[in-house]
């Protein structure tokens, strides 16, 4: 049996409400909130980045796994906001978590699906027998240009998953990927904010890849939507994952637990992995879960997981996603938000 041995998520404490962003730019807040199905989003503190989020999530994954960090043979971090252009985030994360130095480290990038890439490669290493445990993380402090529609959703957070053959809490039964050259969203070298092709990011990009990947893995497994307790689809906004789920035949009750976007925003590489973590927080032994990510450019990864008897034993060992979303939030005004996000040009020190 191969699967998730331990998992952890991190949600920053700071938030900004969609109303405050809309008021700043003279936009109609109600129409944005209705269109995106989103109330507020997380904001990283000035001392937070993909590395600190990965360490926080990784530490909770180690708590739940109950293993010696030295037994982890690889550490992969998927993000589109790695703090360095040249120097892997993973080098710092392994040092902080006490992993290595006998460890393989790489940073991944694939817009919003870099996290599931990291999980897939970590899983594959364990499956091949190359190593006992492998760590895959999806984390981001995503950027949206001021006033752009992305600014309402681009948020921060992440989740970490330790894959292994022993002490499995959620078995991975199937994986499936679907990728093509679909230029719906990009950021050129040296550009601060990403660009997107507006509505083109919907049908030919998100829905084409998410639906094809989900249909592919369902066909591969022989399972039907009604067999699953939970399903998670990448959450660029509130509407897309619900529409994708409905098109595939999933019901609202199956989608709600992993649908964290209304209170969290789009955590890019951390989005669908954090939705999965929210499902793992409450799943019961035997429950089946489907997760399908989406990364612009474009591609989707799907996983089918089944909770084991060990899952309930580890759920309470670290903070749960929905508890973190509700816990002691600090709402920033727009001025503080742009200062924290480094969107104001300051004098050089």
């Amino acid at each position, binding site marked *: 049996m191969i699967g998730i041995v331990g998992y952890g998520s991190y949600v920053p404490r700071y938030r900004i409400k969609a109303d405050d962003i809309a008021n700043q730019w003279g936009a109609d807040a109600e129409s944005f909130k209705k269109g995106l199905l989103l109330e507020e989003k997380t904001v990283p503190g000035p*001392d937070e*980045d993909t590395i*600190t989020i990965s360490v926080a999530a990784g530490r909770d994954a180690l708590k739940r796994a109950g293993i010696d960090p030295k037994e982890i043979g690889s550490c992969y971090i998927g993000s589109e906001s790695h*703090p360095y252009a040249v120097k892997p985030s993973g080098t710092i994360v392994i*040092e902080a978590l006490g992993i290595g130095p006998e460890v393989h480290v790489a940073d991944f990038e694939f817009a919003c699906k870099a996290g599931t890439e990291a999980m897939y490669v970590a899983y594959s290493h364990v499956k091949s027998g190359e190593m006992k445990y492998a760590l895959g993380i999806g984390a981001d402090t995503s950027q949206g240009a001021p006033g752009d529609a992305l600014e309402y959703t681009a948020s921060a957070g992440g989740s970490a998953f330790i894959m292994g053959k022993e002490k499995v809490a959620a078995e991975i039964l199937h994986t499936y990927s679907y990728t093509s050259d679909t230029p719906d969203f990009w950021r050129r070298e040296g550009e601060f904010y990403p660009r997107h092709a507006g509505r083109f990011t919907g049908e030919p990009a998100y829905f084409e890849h998410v639906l094809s990947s989900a249909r592919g893995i369902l066909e591969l497994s022989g399972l039907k939507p009604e067999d699953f307790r939970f399903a998670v689809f990448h959450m660029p906004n509130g509407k897309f994952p619900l529409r994708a789920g409905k098109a595939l035949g999933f019901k609202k009750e199956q989608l709600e637990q992993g649908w964290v976007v209304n209170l969290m925003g789009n955590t890019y590489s951390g989005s669908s992995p954090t939705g999965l973590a929210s499902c793992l927080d409450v799943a019961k032994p035997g429950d089946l879960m489907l997760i399908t990510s989406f990364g612009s450019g474009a591609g989707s990864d799907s996983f089918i997981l089944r909770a084991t008897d060990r899952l309930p034993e580890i759920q309470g060992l670290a903070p749960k996603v929905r508890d973190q979303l509700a*816990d002691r939030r600090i709402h920033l005004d727009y001025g503080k938000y742009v200062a*924290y996000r480094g969107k104001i040009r*300051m004098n*050089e*020190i």
Partner: protein
Amino acid sequence: MITPRYHREIPQRYRLEGGKCTQCGEVHFPPRAVCRKCGGREMETVDLPRRGKVLTHTTIWIPPAQFESQKPYVVAVVELENGVRLTCMVADAPPDEVKIGTEVEIIFRKLQSDPRWEVLQYGYKAKVVG
């Protein structure tokens, strides 16, 4: 902080590794070459507990330039569960949230990111346990 010093201090700043005197058991943080209690020169590495309480604190309103965007922020002396004390910033905490005796957890955060062409520096801060 120059890069060689930053690199040398990674075990204590990232993982909270202290030095325990093999002769008398005194735990030092940061680690020292010579025991301040018995003068012993043999130390073993120990991981310090991550939970503790605020012993005393102050709020910084006029910080050094590199911390300008974070003001006001709280700096505290934290006593860990094993009695070891350390000084650090309290992350994400409005000043009125930190009191003497407040329970905290030691977490990993970015300490300095300026100037922007230099190495990013990470290390420990405290977080109020809710």
